[in-house]
């Protein structure tokens, strides 16, 4: 405590505390800026690290991969059969986007099942009337006790909605190929779901709760996505973002990257186009980090690729997607990635635990771990706390008096929570276009209320200050709670909501009330949760979202995948926004209670 006391004494001699308190608004802004700088410097040389395989047992690509051209004919055979289940509009047009299905899923499953049973895979069908049935098979491990499993998953439709013919054929062929190996010490489960979204999610949940045929705890899951009937492709895309901020263990991503590159393919992350794959400079790394933050924030809401379905069950999962239709790399090369990954995971004696669970990737081979990037989100959260303290301290109304106003602020906070809760639940039940328009216009009306009622309604000054400080404190607490669970989302929403803290009190005696009000309204317009989400998705994610599409996507992400992005928007951000709007009402001052002891005490507290 000696050092602390010295510092404290020095500080009080210099009169530092009152100065700092006066500068709180600026300090808050500086803290936010520093947090952005902390992210921006991450791609600079020396700030990031090179990835490495942390678990020695994995040994990716150390064993020779035998899934080669000899398997190609078998794969073609399966694929030709699967092709007969769909029909292209004409002989010339064989683009997979325009194909349609001509047999029922039962017939398809019957055929696949007969194939699987030929080489000794135990099969079962999971029936679900809502999401469609899922066929799965368990290949029991010749070695080991069969308490652990690896999953190979082939959704019939991929994330884009195209037929995953190549992936399915490859999956069946791999199962056949795996069944001839005596080396497996973990069960292998092959899953054929209708889609990578709720059908797969429902199967994963059923696997852990109600299914009869199971193969033990799932260690890893690999989703194969090879749409179309072509033999060749250009590069491989790896999707790894799970729901609610979950990421697979970095070791799994590392072995996927290392195997793919070992087989001579380029790896793309976060939909990076092919021509940018070999670029590695500051800007490309910064771009990938920002894309990673965006994709993690919108995971489950935007296009789902299948690996998301395994989130929340301690399963490390990722999706391998073959991109492009021309190119020199053939489908058996793509098959060697899951083969080598399965052999790596098969070596594990413990669950994935060695490597990082919290990371941001800068390139396929570079990453930053949580200790490097977490401070920036913490600082943003602190910036809100500072804004909150600003409303408490930089006022003539000390916290110890005016209990009634603090109570009113508390009630306002509770009311805003109740309103937000109601809104979130109404939308969970129905998200029609009309509802969305209603929501946005309702928000707009709320936003304009202080502006319109400038001359008509006043509230007391201490109330607005208390309301704002409580709101910001709540938001700071929310973001702190969120940042370990979902760093990217916490960082994005705190950053997007930051203009809220620029809002200033408007008094009846202010000279230019209208100008102040206009400034406040502008700040609040850009920091509204719904408008900013709408803006972000329409600008940066315009391939997936048009106009109001994002709202149904948010609610269906909860209904189908249990992704709580929508609730965080409604329960963390919206109440604070409502409170901040309320605090921009024109205020009248109340008489100041002069209480010497109270005043002094407040100063001391600070």
């Amino acid at each position, binding site marked *: *405590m000696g050092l602390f*006391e010295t510092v*404290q*004494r020095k500080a*009080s001699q210099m009169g530092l505390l009152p100065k700092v308190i006066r500068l709180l608004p600026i300090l808050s802004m500086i803290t936010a800026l520093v947090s952005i700088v902390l992210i921006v410097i991450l791609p600079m040389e020396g700030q990031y690290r090179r990835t490495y395989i942390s678990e020695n047992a994995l040994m990716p690509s150390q064993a020779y991969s035998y899934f080669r051209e000899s398997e190609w004919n078998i794969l073609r055979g399966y694929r030709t059969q699967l092709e007969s289940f769909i029909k292209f509009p004409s002989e010339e047009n064989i683009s997979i986007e325009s194909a349609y299905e001509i047999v029922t899923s039962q017939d398809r499953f019957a055929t696949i099942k007969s194939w699987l049973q030929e080489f000794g895979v135990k099969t079962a069908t999971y029936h679900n009337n809502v999401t469609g049935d899922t066929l799965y098979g368990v290949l029991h491990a010749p070695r080991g006790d069969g308490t652990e499993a690896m999953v190979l998953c082939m959704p019939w439709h991929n994330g884009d909605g195209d037929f995953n013919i190549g992936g399915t054929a490859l999956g069946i062929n791999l199962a056949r190929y795996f069944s001839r190996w005596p080396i497996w010490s973990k069960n292998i489960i092959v899953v054929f779901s209708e889609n990578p979204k709720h059908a797969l999610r429902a199967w994963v949940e059923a696997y852990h709760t109600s299914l009869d045929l199971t193969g033990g705890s799932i260690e890893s899951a690999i989703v194969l996505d090879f749409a179309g009937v072509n033999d060749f492709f250009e590069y491989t895309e790896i999707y790894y973002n799970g729901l609610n901020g*979950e*990421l697979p263990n970095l070791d799994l991503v590392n072995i996927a990257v290392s195997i793919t590159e070992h087989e001579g393919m380029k790896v793309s992350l976060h939909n990076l186009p092919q021509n940018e794959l070999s670029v590695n400079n500051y800007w490309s790394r910064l771009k990938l980090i920002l894309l990673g933050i965006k994709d993690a924030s919108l995971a489950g809401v935007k296009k789902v690729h299948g690996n998301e379905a395994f989130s*929340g069950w*301690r399963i490390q999962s990722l999706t391998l997607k073959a991109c492009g239709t021309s190119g020199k790399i053939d489908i058996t090369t793509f098959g060697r990635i899951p083969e080598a990954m399965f052999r790596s995971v098969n070596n594990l004696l413990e*669950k994935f*635990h060695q490597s990082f*669970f*919290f990371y941001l990737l800068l390139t396929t081979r570079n990453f930053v771990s949580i200790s490097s990037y977490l401070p920036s989100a913490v600082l943003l959260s602190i910036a809100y*706390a500072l804004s909150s*303290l600003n409303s408490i301290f930089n006022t003539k109304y000390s916290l110890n008096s005016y209990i009634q106003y603090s109570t009113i602020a508390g009630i306002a906070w509770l009311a805003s929570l109740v309103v937000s809760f109601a809104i979130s639940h109404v939308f969970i039940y129905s998200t029609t276009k009309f509802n969305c328009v209603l929501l946005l216009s309702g928000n707009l009306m709320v936003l304009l209320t202080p502006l319109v009622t400038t001359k008509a309604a006043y509230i007391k000054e201490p109330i607005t200050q208390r309301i704002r400080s409580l709101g910001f404190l709540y938001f700071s*607490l929310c973001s*702190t*709670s969120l940042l*370990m*669970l979902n760093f990217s989302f916490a960082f994005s929403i705190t950053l997007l909501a930051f203009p809220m803290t620029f809002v200033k009190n408007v008094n009846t005696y202010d000279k230019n009330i209208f100008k102040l009000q206009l400034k406040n309204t502008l700040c609040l317009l850009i920091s509204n949760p719904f408008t900013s989400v709408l803006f972000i998705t329409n600008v940066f994610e315009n391939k997936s979202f048009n106009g109001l599409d994002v709202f149904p996507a948010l609610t269906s992400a909860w209904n189908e995948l249990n992704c709580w992005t929508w609730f965080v928007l409604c329960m963390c951000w919206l109440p604070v926004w409502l409170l901040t709007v309320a605090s921009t009402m024109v205020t009248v001052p109340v008489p100041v209670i002069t209480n*010497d*002891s109270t005043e*002094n*005490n407040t100063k*001391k*507290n*600070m």
Partner: protein
Amino acid sequence: MKNSVVSCVLLCLAVRLVLVLLFPGLGSTLDQSVEFSTPVTSFRSLQEGIFLLKHQLGLYDGGVVHLPPLLLQLGCFTGGETGLRTIFILVDCIIVWLLTQLELTLNGSIRCAWIYGVNPLTVLSCVSGSTIAFTYLSLITAIYSIVVKRNLTLSSSMIAIMSYLDPCMCVLSLPMFNFICGPKKLAKTVLYMVTIVVTGIMLYSICPFPLDVVYGTRLTFASVAPNMGLWWYFFIEMFQEFIPFFKSVFNLFSMGMVIPITLRFHDQRNTNPLHCLILCIGWIILTKPYPTLGETGVFLSLLPLFDIDGISILKYMRYPMFTALLFLHGILLSPIFYHLWIDLGSGNSNFFYAISLVYALALGLLITDIMWGVIRLEYDGGKPNYTRKLTQV
């Protein structure tokens, strides 16, 4: 005043009833949480004990039940889970009533009772059905009977019951000595000690039980499970041969520190004995092997007692804002970090331990800050002078 006492008790009742009735699953969820439930106080073990007792099976053979038998005997009279939950709510109402009486005698206001009634920590602890309710009922009754009724015998027997329910709290009998004053001080002291010992022996002899299972588990931290306290992490990390030594050190640290606090504040002219007692309660909650958030809730509810007779010790506090923020973060983040560790597997035990350290830091800062206030008041000779600047040497 009568009306506000009634409304306070009714509010306490209403909050708990509404929670129990609206969210029937909340109780068992909280009982599974490490923040509100420990192996030695959980509702599950209470139910298990009652079941075993009713079916006349070996109560302590399974190693699941660590509650003293008289509490379980009492539980047998209630009809099932509904009855037990009702008892918990009633116990809280009685505590609130006792607090109102205590404060009306001292102060004329009933802030403690209000805080206890609506404090989320005490409310959730009550809903979780943690048996700490009975421990704190006897503690508050002991305080009530010595401060309001001036009844030393009742108070000391309540202290005995409290120690019977939770042996870690038995050292709280020491600061109770400070309450003994007036003529015949020696006789009263002897009476106090004799009553505690006799009541303790009586409680034990009504229904004997294996001491090592019931008390040994608590004192030696036999069931190493994560909780909000400082103990568990050390004992999952430590080599086997050092464990007994460090368990005794930890116990000594926890219980021994009460003696200097009691001695320092024993002079009634300078310090209210109640303040010394509350500080000791805080210390025990911070350092006991199986703490819960519910106990912290009780401690926080008692803080307005530092603000009596127009003399506010709380105003001497130097960093209440900082402590409050630490508390909020510690309490909010602990279930999240536990989730990361146990459910998602992406975190590990260090995460949860780190946040329980934050929480312990908050509690420790609060205790030292209040202690500073008490000493400052003593320095100012009982007349507060908040403007005078002082720093520790």
